[in-house]
């Protein structure tokens, strides 16, 4: 039998291009439906899990989907905001605690999320190394960010400008990494968390600059109006918060009016949640409250429909490929009729001849199945990230 298999393998080696193409085609049509099914289901589970944990989200009026995607996955292209005072307004209802979110800015492809310490407790995020954010200009990074950017405690991250032509003078802020979160297999892995005030500094609503109340700065002062000092452009602004310049950072105006992207309300009870929902739906037109689970479920409904159409399409292609494969095998067997005749005349047994003929088909099917299985495993590991990026972008 070993020699028979050797002869079979010689046939496969000789016709490798034909068989590789066939194997590739069969692998593709058997893997794709499984991969799509697997990815969509995993993605649905993860997206819904996050939405279920955050049933309500409050934001400015507009697209509920944008608000849900932004507040749950930090992925939103809109820059509509709420005033920070909405936090106290919400808490004054007595129905819920409030966690602010400000996710407008980015470091490369990662969202910078300005929030309060309550967020980490709410999401049960655990620090792997370092400590929580303590002062302005400090950041705690997700495990994915740390891994991809090769960052650890003591390193720095610099915010990316929103536009190359950002002439308003919102300069990139260099922030020091003080903590790295343990992996949570959630969008938090790919976020950079800062204090809400730090996100305002990034936005240019707060800043630090050289001391103007000393003799060295006299030449830079244009005028004084009470406590207000107007200086010329030569005054050096700090683009990094350090222990030395920390006290020079300050905010102009009332921070209650500073913007936040969304609020995560944490109702005290189910009843509180219902009352809160009713309160916002009935009494507030200037803000919206959304049931994020419903929004994400609707989004996934669309994705499932698309998936079903794709799988039906691939199924049809698979049937066609199956027929083509059958035809190839049939033609191959016909082409090998002379070979079978020769083998039989020389004295080969029927079993030997059948093994030599069948090895081609069995090898193609086995290798295709194996490849398809491996690809499905790989897809289960890496495909979900791709799918989430596709869905959320």
């Amino acid at each position: 039998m070993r020699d028979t298999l050797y002869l079979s393998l010689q046939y496969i080696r000789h016709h490798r291009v034909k068989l590789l193409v066939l194997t590739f085609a069969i692998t593709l049509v058997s893997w794709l439906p499984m991969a799509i099914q697997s990815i969509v289901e995993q993605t649905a589970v993860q997206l819904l899990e996050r939405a279920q944990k955050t049933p309500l989200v409050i934001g400015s009026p507009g697209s509920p989907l944008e608000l849900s995607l932004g507040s749950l996955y930090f992925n939103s292209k809109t820059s509509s905001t709420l005033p920070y005072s909405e936090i106290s307004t919400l808490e004054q209802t007595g129905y819920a605690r409030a966690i602010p979110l400000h996710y407008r800015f980015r470091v490369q492809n990662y969202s910078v999320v300005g929030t309060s310490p309550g967020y980490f407790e709410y999401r049960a995020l655990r620090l792997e190394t370092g400590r929580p954010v303590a002062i302005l200009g400090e950041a705690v990074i997700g495990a994915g960010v740390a891994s991809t950017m090769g960052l650890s405690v003591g390193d720095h991250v610099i915010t990316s400008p929103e536009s190359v032509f950002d002439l308003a003078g919102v300069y990139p802020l260099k922030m020091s990494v003080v903590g790295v979160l343990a992996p949570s297999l959630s969008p938090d892995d790919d976020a950079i968390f800062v204090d809400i005030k730090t996100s305002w500094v990034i936005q240019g609503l707060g800043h630090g600059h050289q001391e103007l109340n000393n003799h060295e700065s006299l030449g830079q002062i244009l005028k004084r109006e009470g406590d207000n000092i107007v200086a010329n452009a030569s005054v050096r602004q700090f683009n990094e918060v350090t222990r030395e310049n920390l006290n020079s950072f300050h905010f102009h105006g009332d921070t209650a009016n500073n913007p936040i992207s969304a609020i995560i309300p944490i109702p005290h009870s189910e009843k509180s949640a219902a009352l809160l929902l009713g309160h916002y739906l009935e009494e507030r037109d200037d803000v919206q409250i959304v049931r994020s689970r419903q929004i994400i479920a609707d989004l996934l409904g669309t994705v499932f429909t698309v998936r079903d159409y794709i799988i039906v399409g691939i199924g049809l292609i698979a049937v066609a490929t199956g027929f083509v494969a059958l035809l190839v095998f049939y033609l191959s067997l016909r082409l090998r009729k002379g070979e079978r005749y020769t083998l039989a005349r020389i004295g080969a047994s029927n079993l030997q001849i059948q093994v030599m003929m069948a090895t081609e088909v069995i090898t193609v099917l086995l290798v295709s199945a194996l490849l398809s299985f491996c690809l499905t495993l790989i897809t289960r590991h890496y495909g979900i990230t791709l799918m989430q990026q596709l869905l959320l972008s």
Partner: protein
Amino acid sequence: MALELENIGFGYASDGFKLSLLKLHIQAGESVALVGPSGSGKTTLLNLISGILEPEQGSISIAGQELTSLGARQRRRQRLKGMGMIFQSFELLDYLDVRDNILLQARLAPGVTVTADLEQRALSIASELGLEDKWHRPITALSQGERQRVAACRALLLDPSLVLADEPTGNLDPENKQAVLDHLIALCARDGRILLVVTHDHSLLPSFDRVIEMADLLSSEGPER
């Protein structure tokens, strides 16, 4: 060692072809050409001797071994290990190189292992037929004459007592056909093998020890349809 046939009767049910042979005796080391018109039953006779077909009556004996007493499986084994077969269209496998085509019969034969010694023997036969520098060449890269020599090597490898060749030079040019046949006859004669060749080419007949007209083997009625 001799090949003996006596009172053979065979018929194809499908087209009513019937063959009746009186007697054939070939000595070891003898090369015999079998000639006759198309349809006279030459190839059928080779198939009967090789055990591919089973006669309805009569006796076929190779080296004292009665072939008609063997079952299909034993005849197949006998064919693999005790006979070499050469065909007009070479019947080589195009996905195997020269080496593997020569070793093909050995790989299929039960109880035969392709060892380094056997491979060395194959190479030695190939060298005698001028194929040593083609050892790893694909079959498709060989000329017709070279292909038939590969087929001859395959037939001779397992040291058969009987070599059956059906129009082995039918696809070769005049120069090659004589050369291939001369090699084959010389190798068979040297090792005491019987060589039975079916041929239509009368220019080759002087090379054989004996020429048998198919008509002389048949009973008076001749083949019937």
